[in-house]
C-alpha cells in the first residue's frame, strides 16, 4: 500500500496543517518510506497479544473535589496572542 499526494493533503487537513506543494511531495515520499518500514510489524503474529497502552498499572486516578485557587483571568490570558474583555479573541466564526 502506498500513500499518494492526495492522501497527504487529506491527512494535512485532519492535522490542521497547510503544506506547500514541496512539503506535500517530500512528505509523500518520506511517509511512504516510513510506513513501508512499519510493514515489518506484520511479520509478527499478534492475534492473541494484549496491547500495552501504558507500562504502569494505573487507572482512574481521582482527587478530592475541593475548591481551590486557580490561575487568575489575567494570568490565563498572559500568553494569549490576542484578547479582549477578559477573553481569548479569535476571528469571527459567524457572519
Amino acid at each position, binding site marked *: 500500500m502506498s500513500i499518494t499526494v492526495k492522501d497527504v493533503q487529506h491527512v494535512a487537513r485532519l492535522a490542521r*496543517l497547510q503544506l506547500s506543494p514541496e512539503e506535500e511531495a517530500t512528505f509523500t515520499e518520506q*511517509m511512504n518510506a516510513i510506513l513501508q518500514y512499519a510493514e*515489518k510489524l506484520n511479520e509478527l503474529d499478534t492475534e492473541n*497479544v494484549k496491547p500495552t497502552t501504558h507500562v*504502569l498499572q494505573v487507572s482512574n486516578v481521582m482527587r478530592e473535589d475541593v475548591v481551590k485557587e486557580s490561575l487568575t483571568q489575567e494570568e490565563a490570558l498572559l500568553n*494569549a496572542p490576542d484578547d479582549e474583555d477578559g477573553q481569548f479573541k479569535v476571528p469571527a466564526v459567524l457572519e
Partner: protein
Amino acid sequence: MSLFQYRLPEVHNMLHTKAVSVSELTEEALSIIAERDSKIHAFLTLNEEGARQQARVLDDKLASGASRGLLFGLPAGIKDNIVTKNLRTTCASQFLANFQPLYDATVVSKLRQADAVTIGKLNMDEFAMGGSNENSSFSAVSNPWDLERVPGGSSGGSAAAVAAGEVYFTLGSDTGGSIRQPASYCGVVGLKPTYGLVSRYGLVAFASSLDQIGPITRTVEDSAYVLQAIAGYDAQDSTSAKVDIPDYLGSLTGDIAGLRIAVPKEYIGEGVDAAVRESVLSALKVLEGLGAVWEEVSLPHTEYAVAAYYLLSSSEASSNLARFDGVRYGQRVDDGGGLLELYHNSRSQGFGPEVKRRIMLGTYALSSGYYDAYYLKAQKVRTLIKQDFDEVFTKYDVVLGPTAPTTAFKLGSQTEDPLTMYLNDILTIPVSLAGIPAISIPCGFAEGLPVGLQIIGKEFDESTVLRVAHAFEQHTEYHKARPQL
C-alpha cells in the same frame, strides 16, 4: 583553575566550608558559558539575574546556619521543554518563542527545594523530536568533542552543556533515548528513570506514555544525587508511581560480586560499529574482574522496536500537539481568512519540518481505517518487547550493551533521510517502550569520540543500575576525560 574540575561532593565541601560562595560559583558558571557557549550553542535562555538572586539567597542561608538542600549551590541547566515560572520556555520552537510559563514544573520546584541554582534553559530538538539536535528552530548544537559533529538529540543541549563544563548537571527528557543517546555522544552520564518515578507535571508532552525526565551529569555519583532530589510521587501527575524512594547514594557500594549480566546478541551484532562493540566488550571484562558474570541472551523483538516506537510516539505527538492552535498561547498567524485559516497558518508557520512530519505520520496512523493496522498493532508489539525484558530479568540483574550503534555523526549528514536517523535510536527505544530504567556512561573512545555503555535495569531498580555504573566508573578513567574547547 576552574571549579568545574572538582567532583560534586568536593564542591559541596568547598561551599559548606565557605571556601567558595554560591555567588562566586554562579559567576564562574556564567563566565564559562559566556566564553564557551558561542561554540556549542547549548543554551537558549540564560537566567542571569534570577541565578544571581538565587545565589544570594543561598549564601544568606549558609551564613544563617539554616539546613541546606542536597544540591546546595550547584549551577544547573534545564531542558527547554520543562516549564520554568517567568523564565522563557520555547521547546526550541518558533511556536513558543516568547512563551512565559505561569508555574514551575514539579522537577524544577524540587531542584529549588534542593537548593540548586537555575542557570538557564537548554537547546533541544524542537518539541523533543529528533536524534541530533539539528531540529532546533534556533540553532543546532555542536558536540564539544568535535564541533562539526552532532551532540545527539533531543537533549543535545543538556548533554553538551555538561560535557563542556558549563554547569554541574542538567535535566533532560527521554522519549526514545533522548537522554541516553546524547550522553553517549558527548561522553557524559545520562539516566532515564523508570516511567512514573519522576513527575512529568510541567514537561511539555511529546509522547505521554513514554516521556520521562532524568539527569545528565559528569559522574554516576552526581546522577544519584540529582535523582534523589527529583524522584517521587506527585499528585499533580496522574501517571506518577506510588513507590518508596530508596537511598540511591547508599547504593553506590562498589560491590558487584556475583552480579548477573545479560548481553543481548542483538545489541552487539550487525549494524553496531566495530569500535563501539570493542569498547563494550572491554567494559564487560572490567565488570568480570569485579566479580560479575555475563552471558549472551536474546531479545528477539528488538528489530521491531523502532517501527513500533515511531507509530506510537508520532500518534501520541499528533494528539498532544493539537493544543497548539495560536489562540491561547504561542505564535498566531492571522491573514484575515477566518478561524480555520488561523489554525492552519499558525501551525504551518510555527512548526518545523520534523514536527510536521511526525504530526502527519501520527494523524495518519490514528485515522479511520488505519488505527488497527498501525496503532493497535504497535501497542501489541510493545507488549512483546516488554515480555522479552521480563523474561531476561527472571535470570539476570541487568542488561548491558552499547547506548548507540555508532559515535556522533557529522552535522547535516543524515538530515535528508529521516529513516536512517530514526535507526540511530535502535538500542535505546526498546527500553523506552518497556518503561524500565537505563543509564549511559562513558566506556571508551573511537577515533577521539566518546562511546556510551548502556546499563538497563528492572522496573524501579535504579539502585542496581547506579551501583553497576558506579563500580565500572570507579575502575576506569573515561569519565575524567575532557574535550578541548
